């Protein structure tokens, strides 16, 4: 598990922790059944407050990524990949719709917009 806290980030620290753990679970870098470090250990290691890490874990729990088992700790739950894919597709659709609306504002036509998407896709870092 890797967690980087950025003090200049727009996101509150609990959200940064939550996002990073979530993304590592989704990418399969943290696998189902993994026991996460305790709230207090994580606070100590990352140098943030216990209240902050508690919030990160409870949001992960509410979102169905982990569950806390008394005496064992916080455990990563299996992810329903089909459902997640569905959610992400919906999100992509929203962003693209937003892009189309913005393009219309400055009268950018369809082919120019898709050229832009192509170019961005080409230049993205892996």
């Amino acid at each position, binding site marked *: 598990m890797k967690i980087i806290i950025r*003090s200049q980030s727009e996101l509150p620290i609990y959200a940064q922790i939550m996002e990073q753990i979530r993304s590592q679970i989704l990418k399969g870098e943290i696998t189902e059944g993994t026991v996460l470090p305790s709230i207090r250990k994580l606070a*100590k290691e990352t140098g943030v*407050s216990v*209240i902050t890490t508690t919030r990160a874990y409870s949001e992960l729990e509410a979102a169905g990524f982990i569950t806390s088992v008394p005496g064992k700790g916080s455990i990563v739950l299996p992810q329903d990949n089909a459902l997640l894919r569905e959610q992400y597709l919906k999100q992509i659709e929203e962003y693209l719709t937003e892009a189309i609306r913005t393009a219309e504002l400055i009268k950018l036509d369809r082919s120019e917009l898709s050229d832009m998407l192509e170019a961005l896709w080409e230049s993205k870092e892996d």
Partner: protein
Amino acid sequence: MELLEVKGLTKRYKDFLLDDISFSIPPGFIMGYIGKNGAGKTTTLSAITHLIKADAGEICLEGMTFRKDPVTYREKIGYVGDASYFPADLTRNDIRIILRNFYRSFDEKKFDDYMEKWELPKNLKIKKYSRGMKVKLMFASALSRDTRILILDEATNGLDPMVRREILELLQEYIEDGKRSVLFSTHILEDLQNIADYIYFIDSGKKVLFDTKDELLETYLLVKGGTEELTPVIEKNLTGIVKNGYGFEALYDTGKGDFLPTGFSVEKPTIDEIMVHMLQ
């Protein structure tokens, strides 16, 4: 049960009143006690450590008052202050002997380990110690006992960034098992920005606010803009407006709703900035 509970603490001096201070810290958390110089921070901490006697109020440590059992009460507290409280002519070994005789739970091995780790010179008198060395000796003394609360009164003042960071790590280690807490007074708010769970903010002997640090940092935004855009409605709703020749800066309480037009610069404040604007 709360680890430390302060209820209605009041202390009157000729020209200062510590006025009805109440707060509590659950076990396993760090509270920052902040305010400018002379706000009443040391008076509060001295009442908790029982260096001074309060005029009114009650202080309970793990449910126990000083009056009930002074020896046990003192055993539960580790204290590190701004200035060294050791006799200046003693060496670290003299301190070791004093602590051994004074505290039931003093762990000599632990003390020696800290001496080793921090390389405090064996035969040097404390008056020859640097500020950093004195602070380390105080921390070693406090951490070598089985205490329940660490009370720090401006303990990180005048330390270099390396030592300060090391101390912050020690504090987090101290509370890691969830049974012990830290009460940390400082005006170097940078030290609290990350590790503090709660913030108690005091000014002129009175409470300004008491909340979790996360809540505090999420409630307020720092707004900057041109002075001409500052309409009476906006001005009324902002906190601690500071104007200069080219613009203004103020706190915006997000709980007051969305009254800000676009065009202002909005960013997350530090605890420092919150304190400065609240005292405007």
